């Protein structure tokens, strides 16, 4: 077997996970125009919830996904009502309020769970492909399948339903959408709802894939930002592509340079993206 195959495969699995993390961020940003800097901390919150349910109530992994999704939905919907009342300038103020929320959640997690590193240790059977000298963990397969399914789901909702049409109109031009009779606030609520479900879904996967500790959220937020800015607003399929690219880059970087440089990869990619696309997203300039 070629030595690169496992690196590419684990990069793809990691990238699928990144895409799953970024989907909620992207929806909330593109429809509600909120730069949710608390995104990573919310994923952590869901991850810790999954950890507690698994540790103390022996909840099976596949039950954790819907439970955490609904729990985070219950968190993001009130957040939407809160953020709607923000004074102008909306962009910067939402950035700072969610930064405050991130700090708040981080401190609460620290108070509840201490700074220890935690990981859900489940035994995932290895899957071997017959005829090929190659095997992988079924969890990695699950990540890839889940990412494909969820991306396809969001894509279909956006492209094939009436609600999706209204959402896309809101993404493309808020004022024009309003003129056409679309309630953009309601669309924001929908985006926060869908985003909450997706954030909740990412939590148990995070707890399984990476170490949970209260400061881990910053990197998750950074990854979501990188993937979203790479993809552009409302381009669901590009998110999957961006996630895979980031995952592959990180896998190769870790393989060649060591794991300590991993965090720099996403930061450097973000800076490069912003250098070449200073407006960030290929839409109207916003302040």
């Amino acid at each position, binding site marked *: 077997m070629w030595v690169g195959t496992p690196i590419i495969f684990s990069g793809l699995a990691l990238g699928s996970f990144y895409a799953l993390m970024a989907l909620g961020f992207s929806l909330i940003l593109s429809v509600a125009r909120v730069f949710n800097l608390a995104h990573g901390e919310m994923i952590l919150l869901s991850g810790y919830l999954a950890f507690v349910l698994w540790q103390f109530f022996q909840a099976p992994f596949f039950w954790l996904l819907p439970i955490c999704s609904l729990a985070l939905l219950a968190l993001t919907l009130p957040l939407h009502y809160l953020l709607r009342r923000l004074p102008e300038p909306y962009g*910067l103020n939402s*950035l700072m309020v969610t930064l405050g929320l991130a*700090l708040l959640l981080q401190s609460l997690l620290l108070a509840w769970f201490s700074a220890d590193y935690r990981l859900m240790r489940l035994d995932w059977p290895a899957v071997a492909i017959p005829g090929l000298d190659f095997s992988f963990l079924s969890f990695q397969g699950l990540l890839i399948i889940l990412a494909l399914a969820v991306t396809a789901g969001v894509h279909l909702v956006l492209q094939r339903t009436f609600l999706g049409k209204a959402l896309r109109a809101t993404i493309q031009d808020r004022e024009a959408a309003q003129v056409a009779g679309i309630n953009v606030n309601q669309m924001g609520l929908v985006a926060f709802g869908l985003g909450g479900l997706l954030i909740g879904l990412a939590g148990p996967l995070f707890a399984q894939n990476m170490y949970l500790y209260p400061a881990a959220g910053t990197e998750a937020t950074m990854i979501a930002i990188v993937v979203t800015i790479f993809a552009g607003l409302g381009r669901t399929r590009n998110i999957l592509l961006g996630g895979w690219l980031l995952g592959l880059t990180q896998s190769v970087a870790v393989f060649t340079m060591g794991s300590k440089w991993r965090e720099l990869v996403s930061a450097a990619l973000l800076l490069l993206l912003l250098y070449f696309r200073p407006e960030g997203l290929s839409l109207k300039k916003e302040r």
Partner: protein
Amino acid sequence: MRFPKPLPAAAGVLLLVLWPLIFPDAAHIQQVLGITCLYATLALAWNLYALTGAISLGHAAFFGLGAYASALLNHYYHWSPLLTIPLGALAAVVFAVFWAMGFRRLRGVYLGLASLAALEIPKTIVDNWDRFTYGSMGIMGLDRLPSATLGGLQVDLGMDLQAQYYLLLGIMLLAVLLNLKSIRSRWGWTLRAIRENETAAAALGIASNRERAKALLLSSYLAGLAGALYAHILGLVEPGLVFNLHLSVLPLVFCIFGGSTKVWGPVLGAFILYPLEQLCLLPLFPMGHSAVYGLVIILTIFFFPQGIAAWLPRAPKSA
């Protein structure tokens, strides 16, 4: 009225100068308030850049670079901290030059995101360059601040907390003066014009990128200075300590809460929030006491976005 009313400010400064003489034994409070002065200096540095309308999440990079440059000079060449602190802060300025060039087209939210990412670069490099910076171990045993002789009076700045407090207070007051000059001057109006409407400012002949870069360089030097001082006050540096995102957030919280457009706003914010956290909340909640900063950001932006300094009696002609 011709003369501004400096009374509240003068009374406040007098209070800060006099209280350690009345309570000479309150060592812990002197230490906390000394660090408060240091963070207030950092907040004033942040505010200089914020006057142009920029919200930076990367000032910890300046702080950390100042700290590490000063620490490395002290560690390898054994120069006195009196020399390494002002020199080390220049490392932050070098980084600011790259920042000004790389981010010159970024505004608003995207500038904030870029600055957040920019923090990772010096942090990861310092963290991994084991041979030169000792990596995540950090550098221990740095020289403390030296003793100074003032008119026959020997003052040990390194160990005597009261002397250290006065040093940090003095540096903070210098930073306040710089902030005052930057707000109430022709240049201050330039920065304000850039903040409010860059296109209109450019139409008036303001080279907005150059002026913004000036503010950033000044800001970075001051932040680097604060970092370098911090390294020698503690006697050690570690990447996780001085490149901490927390150090980017603190000045933001202090400035937003205190009032970013007011001369004394950042100082007010620092002197209310930091002692509150360290003296009241830390003993009560040893783990989650930083939550107060998150809460303060949220409440400030919703309920009094101008900061609390807007409630003070205002001197005429202040902006």
